[in-house]
């Protein structure tokens, strides 16, 4: 299956995502932000980095790049989208996943290794994760504090759209409500998370837990047609 990694001006984890997608057994191609063509990708990754410098507000300027219209269509047709770190911020600004990412409660950039609990394993992003396993990977961001107004947050929880939470012993690095590290859109096809699975794709670098997410996607689309598994 083909993974497309969007390159915005200022993306800096695009190579990492391409590399990890290949390790997961996918064919991976870069997608240039000015060209609204997804090159037949089944999964589109919005990678980490600082698109447009993260100026003004992280993710907001990238949201208007021409390729985002294609990403929106892809999602509307049930295609898979994974936003990692800055990519999550772009998805949130674009309204493709719920919520906003505020400045870290510490007001500092936080680079730390964290552990994630996987709240659901019946999604295209998590089906290869063994039951009960906590995933170890790094976070590296200044604006990753997940926020939704109370009522919306309750709805998000009730509809099973919370996919990853920060877990002990490292805990929550940024003050996110409900320790939320990653969420799904209402259709379960678009996922945004702050930690970096693509940087945890090889034991040599400290962990290969992140590869499980990409493997899940590859497995989910093994026959070329993404299987739909809507949230509860």
């Amino acid at each position, binding site marked *: 299956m083909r993974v497309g990694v969007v390159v915005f001006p200022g993306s800096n984890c695009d190579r990492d995502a391409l590399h990890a997608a290949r390790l997961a057994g996918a064919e991976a191609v870069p997608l240039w932000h000015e060209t609204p063509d997804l090159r037949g990708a089944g999964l589109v990754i919005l990678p980490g980095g600082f698109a447009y410098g993260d100026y*003004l*507000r992280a993710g*907001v*300027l990238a949201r*208007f790049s021409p390729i985002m219209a294609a990403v929106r269509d892809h999602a509307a047709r049930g295609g898979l989208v994974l936003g990692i770190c800055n990519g999550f911020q772009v998805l949130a*600004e674009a309204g493709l996943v719920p*919520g*906003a990412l*505020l*400045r*870290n*409660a*510490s*007001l500092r950039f936080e680079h730390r290794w964290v552990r994630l609990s996987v709240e659901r394993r019946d999604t295209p992003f998590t089906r290869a994760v063994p039951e009960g396993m906590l995933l170890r990977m790094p976070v590296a961001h200044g604006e990753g504090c997940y*926020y*939704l*107004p109370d009522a919306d947050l309750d709805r998000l929880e009730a509809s099973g759209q919370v996919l990853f939470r920060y877990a002990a012993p490292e805990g929550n690095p940024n*003050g996110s409500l409900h320790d939320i590290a990653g969420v799904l859109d209402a259709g379960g096809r678009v996922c945004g998370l702050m930690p970096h699975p693509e940087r945890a794709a090889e034991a040599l670098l400290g962990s290969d837990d992140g590869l499980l997410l990409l493997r899940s996607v590859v497995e989910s689309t093994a026959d070329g047609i993404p299987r739909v598994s809507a949230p509860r």
Partner: protein
Amino acid sequence: MASFRYAVSVMPKPGILDPQGRAVEQSLPHLGVDSVHAVRVGRRVELTIDAAGETDARAVAERLAGELFANPLIETWSVELVSAASSVRSAGPA
């Protein structure tokens, strides 16, 4: 065609935690200041818009404010016409 300069003020919505504002408040005692509270830190964007008239220019400013400068989920904004030059005076020695 005329030019209009606007200042868009963007502030965290009431009820949204503002860690920057809190950090400012916490640092005030070190400056010997105890009479200050309710500090909120937001953004100010100044821009010049070319348009036939103020109504058209303001429409662009309002649109940019709501779509770009502020995130309505967490922020409120207001648009203000300022003079053609920056409304902020120069201050302090170089």
